[in-house]
């Protein structure tokens, strides 16, 4: 049975997440087609065709898919799904938005955020903020799945899949794109960074996040945050790490002024090495930290930046 992978892309470039989803598809086994839907996405399709293990890239290049709105995207995938046993997407906000809609249109359940493939119909996924891992089996003929990218190592490049156009055009008179305010940053993307430096409520205000920027610059790191820091308006929502934010698993995660609530741990406890900086030696974050430093972040951060 073949597998359809929905490509993730922004600003005309294939997102790193797709190579992880293709890896999950390889673990399931079967021919892998990648669907690239959007407007002006020829370069995305070419990049997808180079991913190892991809048999074919199907491109729906049309204004109807310009902002990946759920209604036309789901209609498109529904129209193609008949050829496949599995439909996969990254568990990004985009994949999470579109795929359950596809599943319901096909009257099948969705399996969210898988982290391992046990068999083509059996998967592991975290539940209860990652405090339990469930092994689940789908009884549906079509398996609709989102993939937690940190669970699968990205496939490499070297493939040369064929690219073919998809003519299907979904009409949509129900939803309209109005605007987007996207964060601009020269730093690596949170999900893909090798080092993540995150700040919590202990940072005190948004201005103080500059203390983290200095360290992030030296380490080539992405900067993240706890929910409390986002809620307080220190930093934008796209920086939230946790159960209901982004899931990261870098080589090194540095938590600064973060207490370590289970919802935050859910988003970072699979990091290889965890460092915690907190003035409260009882803070739960120290229970998961490989290296804990008790002290005032306002003393520690400038010294750390200087000594790195």
């Amino acid at each position, binding site marked *: 049975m073949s597998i359809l992978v929905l490509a993730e892309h922004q600003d005309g470039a294939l997102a790193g997440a797709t190579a992880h989803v293709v890896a999950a598809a390889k673990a399931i086994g079967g021919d892998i087609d990648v669907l690239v839907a959007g407007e002006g996405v020829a370069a995305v399709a070419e990049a997808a065709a180079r991913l190892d293990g991809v048999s074919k890239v199907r491109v729906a290049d049309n204004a109807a898919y310009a*902002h990946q709105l*759920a209604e036309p995207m*789901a209609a498109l995938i529904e129209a193609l799904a008949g050829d496949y046993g599995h439909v996969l997407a990254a568990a*990004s*906000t*985009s994949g*999470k*938005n*579109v795929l*359950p*809609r596809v599943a*319901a249109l096909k009257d099948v*359940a*969705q*399996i*969210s955020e898988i982290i391992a493939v046990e068999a083509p119909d*059996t998967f592991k996924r*975290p*539940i*209860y*903020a990652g*405090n*339990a*891992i469930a*092994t*689940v*089996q*789908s*009884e*549906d003929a079509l398996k609709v799945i989102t993939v937690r990218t940190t669970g699968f190592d990205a496939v490499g490049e070297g493939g040369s899949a064929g690219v073919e156009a998809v003519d299907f055009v979904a009409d949509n008179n*129900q*939803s*309209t794109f*109005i605007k*987007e*305010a996207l964060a601009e940053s020269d730093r690596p993307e949170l999900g893909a960074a090798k*080092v993540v430096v995150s700040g919590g409520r202990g940072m005190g205000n948004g201005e103080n996040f500059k203390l983290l920027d200095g360290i992030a610059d030296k*380490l080539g790191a992405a900067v993240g945050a706890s929910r409390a820091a*986002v*809620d307080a308006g220190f930093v934008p*929502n*796209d920086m939230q790490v946790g*159960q*209901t934010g*982004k899931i990261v698993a870098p080589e*090194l995660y540095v938590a600064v002024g973060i207490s370590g609530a*289970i*919802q935050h741990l859910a988003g970072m406890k699979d990091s290889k*090495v*965890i*460092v915690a900086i907190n003035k409260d*030696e009882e803070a739960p974050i*120290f*229970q998961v930290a490989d*290296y*804990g*430093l*008790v002290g005032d972040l306002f003393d520690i951060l400038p010294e750390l930046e200087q*000594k*790195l």
Partner: protein
Amino acid sequence: MKVLVAVKRVIDYNVKIRVKADHSDVDLTNVKMAMNPFCEIAVEEAVRLKEKGVATEVVAVTVGPKAAQEQLRTALALGADRAIHVESDERVESLGAAKALAKLVEDEQPGLVILGKQAIDTDNNQAGQMLAALTGLPQATFASEVNVDGDKVQVTREIDGGLQTLELTLPAIVTTDLRLNEPRYAKLPDIMKAKKKPLDVKTPADLGVEVASRVKLLRVEPPAERQGGVKVSSVDELVDKLKNEAKVL
């Protein structure tokens, strides 16, 4: 305009769960249960729409066991006008819940349906999108701002890169993100009044839907425990350990 809000009974978000010894599921005996936090946000938004005069009636709905009526009473105390309980003792996941909700949308004809973005037990993040598909209605997930204007609603969504604003034609489905609002607490007099508000009980059979999950739960395990590490006493020691022991610098 009528607003339908979906609420789910889940484990209280402060509770650390345990896995059953036989690995069949998570152990929920004697565990504190509560309304899913994202559903609290959904109820709050609906009640605010009513307070602004945009909504005329707020109807809270749950699909689940008898005990879930507690969460409906909470919704009523927070300002919902009436409640519908679709009673089922089966393991109901997002698709089953969405099917029951879709039938209620057909019966009730709300202008807006508000759900949480994710139930914090299964962490599925599916039901709103599925309900939108089943009803053929437009969707705006992960909302941080909702503005109803005539027969349209503008919704700002929290997406991976930042914020996105969409306009949907009503009726529509919205799911809540954390920063949509800060839910109020129920006051004692409102809790008393809520006991007298209407609560209808229906069965999935009444609605003509199947709600039991078709995904088999084969096994539940605790995650790999992380060993707590060491405390270092200075920045110098930290940098040294990261370079020479962990080798991540």
